[in-house]
């Protein structure tokens, strides 16, 4: 019966929410109460920040016992014999008690949260801890950033927590981001942080979402609905992360989803519409400009010019391929959640639909998701809870070759390189396919629009937990969870596209199935001795198993394009299918002791033992200890005189070891692989070793030291957190080069070391705080220095594998940051005087006046590859963000700037666009090329297809400052909101990526063509352009 009434109540609210959708802002009739004797006032109590009504608030007339409490909508009615005016004392747990003078209805009261109490408890690994007792470095994503619209939650980490560097790899909707906590520790494997979602451990591996795919990597994290997230904590130092052992070295991101709250029944609907535009386009040559470039190339070849002056003029501007592929694209998000709770149970049910079209034709991202969180106190001692989440996301990707392929291509870059003299369409509107510059009779725009390249990810993540208090101080907790990620990738290139022409239609399908289950069992003992000594002991055993299997099938020679990938049996030729299977297991024992003396002196000691199946037979188990100490100086008696100005002061120090074992399964075994040959024109299979066994293979160890200071000034109106750290990662999992005459290129060994050191600063200030107006500022700043200390005996450097036909633009060298750009310095162009003087020239290339002048770095009189040197790295010198939030009565405004300084970008696209050829379009910078008629030109003269060189011209300054987000909101007063039956109603407009200040000449300084590859960060080869978004939304709670 109780359930029935409850359900009816919720249904009622739900219907109201639906009604709200249909008739926005329509006022519902409000019932008046019957008047009663003496004074009578009514009003509401709301949260001073969120403007959410608060239920259960006690209102008492000062010095009188008579009191009332607010209802679920925060409303109260006070009927009393007292005469107005009188003073109300308003109090509620977690809020500062307030006295209000009541003169008459309505009395609207704003309660401010008791910050000290609210921040009392933070989420840490396998539990929570009083903030004052913390010894580790933990950062939380601020609420205002968490509330920003985003496709995926990893976007929200950017600039949110100092020491967490996030780079959006491309503008492709649904694409991945590169995330580094306090710099990258590893060179070859695993630099991304560990994610813990409601206690479930996910080491995000985008490979699980890329099975035989085409184009940029799919972001498996985008399956999670960011609006479900209540809080994100980032564990940074060893004291906090060592409890995660062999997974902890790269930092831990703890995500807690929203839960129902006791005493509430809320139906929340939120939605926004956005319009995305291209933030920047590249300047390219138009048709007549390109024709003139072709003539200049002819001149240098000593042949007659292709175009006469009259023909040049007739070429006009020609085709703008870039514009033809781009569009303004809408974005929509809709979200409905129902949450609530009573004395014994709490629940939240949510659904989400997100649809973001891409600004390049035929691309986009959609997500459908649903969540149920439920918690029940079965008895006083026994509690059960479950979190279940399911989603399906569908990404239409820009066509290109596989993101980790050594031979890459990208349909957008191809488009930019198409000469403007080629028409885009025929007069009848069909695509023009007779360009003399394209090898097959196809059209690069048609390649984008006609090719299907879809990834569908279906994820179910669920866990159940049982918690039992064996003794008042001793709790046993058992959880079991499962994460299932299913990937389907469909690809079809019709015969009229360059990808399908030679194959007469090419279709492929890929299926991937990942399953991971986790069981965690912990015992927690929590006891206070005489309110003096506080002890918390955690011990546990956990075990996790993950398996991944995949299969791909492809076929070609289709009689027509009707069935594409849906029925491969129409194909004339079936290609060899593939399948794979890999499994891994991790067994762990963990323990932690937190001890605090009077909450003044705090000590945390933790240890974890991890056994991983992936490591060598002799080294399956690793041990990861840590210790942290903190001192709340302000709580000492001697500090009292200073308490006026310094409201809190805390010192923290910690040291510990964490690990990284993110190698693929079977890496330590002497594996054999198949190859093929032909005898009698028939295929035969050969099998031979591809890897030398290494039974000693073990995890990488990161030893980290951290010292921190938390300072609160002027009654905590200024809060400052400062950390300095040093990390050294040893036993790197590195593919150590072997002598090539061994028959192997490398062996996976544990050699070499990398260091990261840096400082972090976070400042929160309450600049202005009045009843009507408040202004808060949040500043995050981080500086990290990364350096390769050793690459093992006899190895001082190596070049990561470059795409075929290219020279590696990066080097990994001892003494330099991982992934340093490596190339020539240049010094303008060669002049006749230079040639006469006999300045060093590029070896093997006949250099003339107007060619690039390279710097002879080693002074040997000739320019060879020995003159290449470090040109900087993609790692920033510092990163930072500044957020200002203002509220004025019902208005709120937040402005979020984020930036990066000192990072370099290798602009491979610009290098390609500045290479004059007779077949490809070029950058508008070539308008200023040197020529006999333009002797002051600053760009090298036009020659036919010079060898592209990695030079300082293309290693550009990637520093930037972005206005990432500005949003203006209006929260309706309770009176207005209640007219439509709502407890809360907020509308807002927001702009994302509004302004970028940078010297970088490419589309966007946030770029990673090679995705998460740690050695190839900051390379731009025409990735998907970044967008600017304007959106408007509404958020209503019933």
């Amino acid at each position, binding site marked *: 019966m109780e359930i029935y009434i409850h359900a009816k109540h919720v249904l009622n609210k739900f219907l109201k929410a639906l009604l709200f959708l249909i008739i926005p802002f329509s006022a519902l009739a409000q019932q008046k109460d019957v008047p009663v004797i003496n004074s009578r006032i009514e009003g509401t109590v709301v949260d001073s920040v969120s403007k959410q009504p608060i239920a259960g608030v006690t209102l008492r007339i000062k010095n009188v016992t008579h009191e009332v409490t607010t209802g679920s909508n925060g409303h109260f009615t006070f009927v009393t014999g007292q005469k107005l005016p009188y003073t109300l004392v308003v109090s509620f747990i977690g809020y500062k008690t307030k006295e209000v003078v009541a003169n008459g209805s309505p009395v609207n009261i704003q309660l401010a949260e008791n910050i000290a109490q609210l921040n009392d408890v933070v989420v840490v690994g396998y539990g929570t801890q009083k903030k004052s007792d913390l010894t580790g470095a933990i950062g939380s994503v601020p609420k205002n950033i968490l509330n920003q619209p985003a496709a995926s939650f990893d976007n929200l980490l950017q600039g949110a927590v100092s020491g967490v560097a996030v780079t959006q790899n491309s503008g492709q909707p649904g694409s991945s981001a590169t995330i580094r906590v306090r710099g990258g520790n590893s060179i070859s494997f695993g630099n991304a942080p560990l994610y813990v979602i409601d206690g479930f451990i996910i080491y995000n591996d985008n490979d699980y979402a890329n099975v035989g795919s085409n184009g940029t990597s799919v972001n498996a994290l985008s399956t999670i609905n960011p609006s479900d997230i209540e809080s994100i904590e980032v564990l940074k130092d060893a004291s906090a992360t060592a409890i995660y052992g062999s997974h902890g070295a790269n930092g831990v991101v703890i995500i807690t989803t929203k839960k129902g709250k006791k005493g509430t029944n809320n139906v929340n609907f939120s939605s926004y519409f956005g319009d995305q535009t291209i933030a920047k386009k590249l300047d390219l040559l138009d048709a007549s400009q390109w024709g003139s470039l072709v003539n200049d190339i002819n001149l240098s070849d000593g042949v007659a010019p292709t175009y006469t002056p009259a023909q040049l003029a007739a070429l006009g501007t020609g085709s703008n391929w870039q514009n033809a592929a781009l569009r303004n694209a809408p974005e929509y998000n809709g979200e409905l959640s129902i949450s609530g709770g009573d004395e014994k149970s709490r629940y939240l049910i949510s659904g989400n639909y997100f649809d973001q079209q891409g600004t390049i034709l035929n691309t986009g991202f959609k997500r459908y998701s649903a969540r149920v969180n439920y918690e029940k106190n079965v008895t006083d001692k026994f509690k059960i809870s479950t979190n279940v989440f399911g989603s399906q996301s569908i990404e239409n990707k820009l066509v290109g070759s596989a993101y980790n392929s050594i031979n890459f291509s990208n349909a957008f870059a191809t488009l930019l390189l198409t000469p403007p003299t080629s028409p885009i369409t025929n007069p009848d509107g069909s695509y023009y396919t007779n360009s003399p510059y394209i090898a097959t009779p196809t059209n690069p725009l048609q390649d984008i629009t006609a090719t299907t390249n879809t990834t569908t990810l279906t994820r179910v993540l669920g866990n159940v937990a049982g918690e039992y208090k064996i003794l008042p101080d001793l709790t046993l907790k058992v959880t079991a969870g499962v994460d299932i990620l299913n990937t389907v990738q469909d690809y079809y290139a019709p015969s009229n596209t360059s990808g399908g022409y030679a194959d007469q239609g090419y279709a492929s399908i890929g299926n991937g199935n990942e399953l991971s289950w986790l069981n965690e069992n912990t015992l927690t003992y929590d006891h206070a001795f005489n309110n003096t000594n506080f002890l918390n002991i955690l011990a546990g055993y956990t075990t996790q198993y993950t398996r991944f299997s995949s299969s791909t099938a492809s076929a070609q020679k289709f009689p027509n394009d009707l069935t594409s990938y849906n029925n491969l049996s129409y194909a004339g030729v079936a290609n060899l299918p593939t399948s794979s299977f890999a499994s891994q297991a991790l067994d762990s024992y963990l323990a932690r002791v937190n001890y605090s003396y009077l909450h003044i002196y705090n000590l945390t000691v933790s240890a974890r033992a991890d056994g991983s199946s992936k490591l060598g037979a002799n080294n399956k188990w690793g041990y990861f200890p840590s210790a942290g100490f903190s001192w709340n100086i302000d709580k000492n008696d001697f500090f009292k005189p200073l308490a006026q100005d310094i409201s809190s002061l805390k010192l923290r120090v910690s040291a510990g070891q964490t690990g990284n074992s993110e190698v693929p399964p079977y890496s330590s075994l002497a594996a054999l692989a198949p190859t*093929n040959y032909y005898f009698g024109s028939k295929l035969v299979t050969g099998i031979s070793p591809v890897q030398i066994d290494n039974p000693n293979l073990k995890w990488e160890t990161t030893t980290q030291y951290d010292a921190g200071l938390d300072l609160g000034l002027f009654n905590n109106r200024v809060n400052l957190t400062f950390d300095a750290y040093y990390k050294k990662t040893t036993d790197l999992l590195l593919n150590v080069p072997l002598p090539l005459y061994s028959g192997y290129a490398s*062996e996976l060994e544990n050699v070499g070391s990398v260091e990261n050191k840096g400082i972090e600063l976070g400042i929160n200030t309450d600049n202005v705080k009045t009843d009507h107006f408040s202004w808060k500022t949040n500043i995050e700043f981080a500086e990290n220095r990364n350096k390769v200390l050793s690459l093992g005996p006899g190895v001082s450097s190596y070049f990561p594998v470059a795409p075929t036909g290219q020279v590696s633009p990066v080097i990994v060298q001892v003494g330099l940051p991982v992934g340093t750009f490596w190339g020539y310095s240049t010094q303008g162009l060669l002049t006749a005087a230079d040639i006469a003087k006999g300045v060093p020239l590029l070896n093997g290339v006949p250099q003339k006046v107007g060619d690039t002048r390279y710097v002879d770095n080693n002074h040997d009189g000739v320019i060879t590859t020995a003159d290449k040197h470090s040109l900087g790295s993609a790692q920033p010198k510092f990163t930072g963000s500044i957020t200002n939030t203002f509220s004025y009565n019902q208005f709120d405004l937040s402005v979020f700037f984020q930036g990066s300084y000192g990072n370099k970008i290798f602009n491979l696209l610009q290098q390609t666009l500045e290479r004059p050829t007779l077949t490809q379009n070029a950058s508008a910078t070539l308008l200023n090329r040197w020529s006999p008629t333009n002797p002051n030109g600053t760009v090298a003269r036009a020659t036919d297809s010079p060898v592209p060189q990695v030079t300082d011209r293309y290693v550009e300054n990637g520093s930037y400052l972005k206005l990432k987000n500005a949003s203006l909101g209006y929260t309706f007063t309770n009176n207005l909101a209640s007219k439509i039956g709502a407890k809360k109603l907020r509308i807002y407009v927001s702009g994302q990526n509004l302004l970028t200040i940078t010297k970088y000449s490419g589309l966007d300084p946030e770029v990673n063509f090679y995705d998460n590859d740690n050695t190839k960060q900051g390379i731009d080869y025409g990735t998907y352009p970044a967008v600017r978004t304007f959106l408007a939304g509404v958020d209503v709670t019933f």
Partner: protein
Amino acid sequence: MKNISPYKIILLLTGSVVGLTSCNKLSEDPKSVIVSSQFYQTTSDATSAVNAVYSTLNSDPAGDFPLYGRQLNLLVENASDNQLYSPSNTNPDVRALGTETYISANSRVQKVWQQLYYGINRANIAIDNVPTIQMDTTLRARLVRESKFIRALLYFDLVRLYGDVPLVLHNPNSTNIDNLLTARTPAADVYTQIIADLEDATNLPKSYSSTDLGRATSGAAHTLLAKVYLTQQDWPDALTQLNLVINGGYGYALFPNYYDAFQKATKNGVEHIFSVQFETNLGEANSTQYLSESFTSFNTGTFPIDIPVDTSLYNLFSANDTRRSVTFYNTVYNAATGQNVVYNNAYTPYFNKFVDYSLSPLSSQSLSGVNYPVLRYADVLLMKAEALNEINGGPTSDAYTAINQVRTRAQIANLTPGLNQAAFRDSIFLERRKEFIQEGHRWFDLVRQGGTVLVDALHKISAKSAATSKNTLFPIPLVEIQQNAKLKQNPGYN
């Protein structure tokens, strides 16, 4: 619900722990990967192990272009006087080979070294492991000898390209990996090993059934052995081996048409003694012919392969030499339009031998099924003429017969009679150059003549003026020198 016994709850919770955790084991049982301890057990394993040896000739484990079909030609053809570079040549390391400015860090010089040793390693593994397998002893002996043939072929390439090289005869593993750093073995010792392997390989079958066509034969072993002796200027031993090939009942002969030596339909034919196999591998895996990509499109505005002909080469041929139109093209019939497309620019004519005209569309040339001929009967005849000329202080009538067989097939006149030894020698090398374009002979033929022959030939092309005497050997790859102090560099390189 309030009456739940606490013990039941504890039991329930701990029970679920035990139930779940008993599943996890930390030892790996790879279901999708074969591990060496599971392998080398059966006849099928032995065959697969040897197939893998052959596959190193036409594919690269890292997905790069194959040794035969691209990489070897970069050194032996592009760094000779046959080839230059085109606008599609964007890799500075490839261009450095064409302009004789390559250094020890050159990635292609390194790749060839790596691919040769990769194949040698696979051969070593087969030679060490196959004899331990319980199987038909005849087949077992044959498989080992096939592997020895490939090992000898690859060491022969190595020793000619790089000089003294480390002689590695066994597969490294985790127990001996630290003993890998060795010095260069004198070339003479490498040759001793090559000859020993080839002598064993002469016990291979003379021929195979149709399903095994393409395997190494005793004829291939004798021919390669002759080439080894010829390179060492051991003329009598070379002649002995060549006579065994010619008179040994193998039935080798020249195709009546030069054209047939480079066709998919006539592969493994009467003239082919040993070829690296390529197939139009529709739907199947691996092996990419790249030399065939000298045709890529009917669009004359795009440039095909990056290492085009040096025009002086085309001009060597007389118009009636049938080899000219087989070796080069400048006109291709476009079936889609019914028209002939004529290519005419600074880089034409284009190479033709590996273009597979049976493909549709013709632009799918990576699927070319034209084999790469490593040993051809024309080579046997020209080697015989050369050996006779050297043994007898001048050409014998047998020497003339041999060279004229090759010339007659090309439909050109017999060689001028009565040449002295030097003039005959020059004629042979000119004939070899014209006969074997793109077949991986030219640089070797220039170098083995000794003296300044290579440098003089290169200096005839202005873009190759950087050539010096150091170019008679390629540098040991820099990465090898850097991690192994025992390896010393070749003269003239750093």
